[in-house]
């Protein structure tokens, strides 16, 4: 009779032990196991991602010259002094008299593709004969810098001498 009581108590204690200790412990264990597996999978994915990045980086290094050209065309920091110097140099090379240079407003592009692009407007007052002006225009438009001529106003002052007003747009990146 005594043994039966002990057996009953032992089973009951086992049951309580399972319910209050072992079962919660097993839930914690399962949760941690899942968490570790997720992290391992993430690390594996990151490993592949970074290995791809290194490959891309190596690839980009092979095209360094192209990237330098892009940097020159759309620089991260626009140097106004260097830009004015560029216009003056091109004007001199083409026999154009650069009378005035003014900087206009700087705006950010609204289009999503260009969200990090800034546009700076520059007004140029020039005096030249038509062919000199045309060469000057072609050179600045085809230069390594990304320059766009937005407006041209031409007025005749003398037979061979013309007055030009240009509104040009240059791009820079906001990085």
């Amino acid at each position: 009779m005594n043994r039966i009581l002990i057996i009953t108590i032992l089973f009951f204690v086992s049951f309580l032990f399972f319910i209050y200790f072992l079962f919660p412990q097993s839930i914690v264990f399962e949760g941690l196991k899942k968490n570790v597996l997720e992290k391992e999978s993430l690390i594996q994915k990151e490993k592949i991602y970074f290995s791809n990045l290194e490959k891309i980086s190596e690839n980009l290094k092979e095209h360094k010259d192209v990237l330098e050209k892009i940097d020159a065309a759309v620089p991260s920091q626009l140097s106004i002094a260097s830009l004015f110097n560029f216009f003056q140099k091109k004007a001199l090379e083409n026999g154009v008299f650069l009378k005035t240079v003014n900087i206009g407003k700087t705006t950010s592009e609204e289009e999503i593709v260009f969200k990090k692009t800034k546009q700076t407007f520059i007004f140029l007052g020039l005096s030249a004969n038509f062919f000199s002006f045309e060469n000057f225009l072609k050179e600045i438009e085809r230069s390594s810098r990304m320059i766009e001529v937005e407006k041209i106003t031409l007025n005749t002052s003398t037979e061979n001498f013309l007055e030009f007003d240009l509104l040009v747009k240059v791009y820079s990146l906001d990085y």
Partner: protein
Amino acid sequence: MIKEKLIEIIPKAKKEISPIVNYLFWSAVVLIIILIGLFFFLQNQIFALEKKGGELEKKLTTHGEQEKLDKEIKITADKIDIFSKLLSEHKITSNFFEFLKTYCHPKVQFFSLDIDAKIFKASINGKTDDFQTLGEQILIFKESGFVNDLQISNISLDRKGKVGFELSFMFSEKIIKK
């Protein structure tokens, strides 16, 4: 009296424990041992997993050089993307002069010119020998296929009979786009 003592001296027969009770007893003992063993095993495993989880978390959050590389590549990709888009939309406004050279009547003189490359609009002030030449110039522009919405205004005659005029029109973006 003697009879009673004799009875007490003779050992009582041991009560036999039923094999089922015995089996159940030992089963219960083994079960409780297994459960305790499992408990310690799980606790050990949990400790190991927590340690491993911490190490993995550290690995996930510290990338240093790789993150820098990632940022650099994203910036470069952005630059390439922006540049290619800008290049595809790049306007060569000087091409408008090529258009004028091709479609300008030999007897027409231009004195002033306004080009707005943003809205593809041009206004030209000029002079011709007569109205017929002016008409021909308008026709040349219209038939070029590059001119729309052509309007003529400020027509005047000077003392020498020359005709002054102002032309404004919308031009095709094909003229100034690459």
